[in-house]
């Protein structure tokens, strides 16, 4: 059983890293703009179609082509924030931006249906040279595509964290997140910061979509389960915290796999949601939060 546990732990860790990079964008927009993007899963779906069309069309390596969906989503995110969300935020200055939540929920449904119209409901996947390769370490087997995806996801997530913590722009983003009015007084153009933040999160989401290509298929309805998991990860890790996302993602991955080992894959999902409720009740600002901002 020891080996089984080790194997499940490895699988959970690898999957969790990818979950984390998908959730980062949600966490950032939540933390900085108070925007709840209900269509995060559907954004992932769109990014995956872009990634697949590119990889299947050009025959490029999915990992090398990750900048394509990243750039696409980054630009899309920037435009969406600049022309739609910023206006909506202006109108709802005094309260939580509820209309954006409703807007993104509607947009999610729209995206699913448009994708169904354009691509049909047949799942699209591609055969890459990484598919079905496993690295054997004794009796332990590590899936090669998942290992590569995990490494890239973690590197990108940490790089983004570095950017936010150490650069001037990053500081501006943090300042805006902590207090918009004061940040404005310090000469920070908060609208530009909002656009940049949303674009960064969307770009990372686009890159994550490319990381899924070697082992996952895209279909119009695939976003749902990823979207929900992203919310749980953000709640778990604390909104706005990138490292929190990483930890949250890995925790979800581990629960799924280790829970699946002792129970079953289908029922391990129950554990994930049970944890979500427990966290909301006892640590609503996330595992990494200090109580001062409660």
């Amino acid at each position, binding site marked *: 059983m020891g080996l089984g546990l080790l*194997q499940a732990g490895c699988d959970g860790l690898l999957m969790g890293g990818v979950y984390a990079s998908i959730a980062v964008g949600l966490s950032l927009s939540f933390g900085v703009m108070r925007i709840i993007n209900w269509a995060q899963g559907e954004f992932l779906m769109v990014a995956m179609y872009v990634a697949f069309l590119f990889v299947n069309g050009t025959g490029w390596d999915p990992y090398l082509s990750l900048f394509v969906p990243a750039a696409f989503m980054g630009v899309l995110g920037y435009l969406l924030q600049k022309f739609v969300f910023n206006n909506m935020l202006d109108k709802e200055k005094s309260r939580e931006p509820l209309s954006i939540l409703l807007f993104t929920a509607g947009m999610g449904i729209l995206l699913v249906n448009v994708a169904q119209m354009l691509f*049909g409901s*047949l799942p699209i*996947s591609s055969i890459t040279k990484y598919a*079905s390769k496993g690295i054997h370490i004794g009796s332990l087997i590590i899936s090669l595509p998942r290992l590569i995806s995990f490494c890239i996801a973690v590197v990108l997530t940490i790089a983004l964290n570095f950017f936010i913590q150490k650069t001037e722009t990053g500081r501006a983003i943090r300042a805006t997140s902590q207090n918009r009015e004061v940040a404005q007084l310090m000469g920070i153009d908060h609208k530009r910061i909002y656009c940049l933040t949303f674009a960064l999160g969307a770009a990372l989401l686009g890159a994550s979509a490319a990381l899924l290509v070697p082992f996952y*298929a895209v279909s119009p*309805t695939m976003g749902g389960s990823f979207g929900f998991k992203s919310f749980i990860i953000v709640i778990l890790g604390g909104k706005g915290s990138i490292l929190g996302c990483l930890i949250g993602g890995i925790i979800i991955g581990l629960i799924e796999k280790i829970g699946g080992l002792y129970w079953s894959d*289908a029922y391990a999902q129950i554990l994930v949601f049970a944890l979500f409720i427990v966290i909301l009740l006892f640590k609503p600002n996330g595992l990494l939060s200090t109580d001062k901002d409660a």
Partner: protein
Amino acid sequence: MKKKLVAMLLTACMALGLCATTVAADEAEAATGDPIKVGIIAPLSGTTALQGEYLMNGYNFAVKHINEEGGINGRPLELVVSDSESLPEVGATEFEKLAQDDEIVAMMGAYSSGVSAVIAPLAIKYSIPLMVTHAVSDACMELGENKYVYRANCGTVESYVWYEKFFQWMAERGTPIKTIATVYENSDYGFSSNEMLQKLCDESDLGMEMVLSEPVASDSADLSGVINKLKAANPDYAYVALNGNDAVLFARQMKEYDCNVAYCGAGGGFMQVDYYEKVGDLSDYMMGISFWYYDIIEALGNPRAAELAAEYHDTYGYDMQEIVVSAWTATYVLADAMKRAESIEREAIADALKETDLEDDTATIFCPYNRVKFGDDQGRNNQNLYSAMPSAQMFSGEWKMIYPADLVQGENPLVWPVPTWEEREAQ
């Protein structure tokens, strides 16, 4: 000399006769009269939209041919289609809507077991004939004596019976299957399949043991957990019922995790027309048990079936598959009943359906036993008594039949035990 003359005369007569039938066939004109409306409940959207597409292709393809052959005594068939959205409650509402339209004289549908189970009782309530199409669960047929609900394809009982026969045959050929496992999506279909195999372990004389029974959430991003459990349990044979991308993921991860358990790819995912494109040789040696395989066309040796299959491929861009065949059979069986019915009215069509006995007919051209006759069987009313579920194995993307013997062409292609991944790499 006299004999020779008689023989020549006979040959001449036969030749003339043949000419006559050819002329007759050519003369069959396309139907032009008042259309006869048939209602369809199909999943055009939702989780089984893809299967809904196959189902509609099958209905449309059959209707096109029926109408070209002269329709129902000169009147063409017309389909009135409603979307079930893959949901039983929507399917039920849509069924009621169509059933209340007096112009619609019969219904067909609905692919999934869940939707079929709720519309079948409604067919009896509204006294409208219903050809259940493709649904496997027997719930829709266990409605007591009635003349409205019919099914030409197999049910869970047939799955049980044909699995039992297959396992018995495996034992007889000296390769008994002693331990089995099930991996299934947590849906109606998955659970009923798992129950069926559990019953086979508990109640048959096969002496099999179920060593693992694993439900899986659909649209999984990772099946490594269940595959590692399967590897640890190491059964002789695994039954894997998965849909959509999960079936693709399963094949890929079986190799990734070096799991060498022989498995039966049951369920929609493994039967997708582009499955082989997606997984390639990973699908080699996969076992199958189903209503229909492309291989059956050759096994039955009917040139008309081969022609139709080729035409289907040209029209839709991919090969026929089991859902298409279910729809074809249902439509032709219904058309046959309409031709025999005293009038084109619900009651008369229902009466005619009850008397259905088709053999070697365009309707049954794709059925493994080339026959449709409805009767009572194990609590199910109006079930086709000649439905069957042959077993097959996949080689380079093609299913080759391995059981029953009368459908196997030439030497039995079965490769058992299934080679390990290491052995396959070495080949």
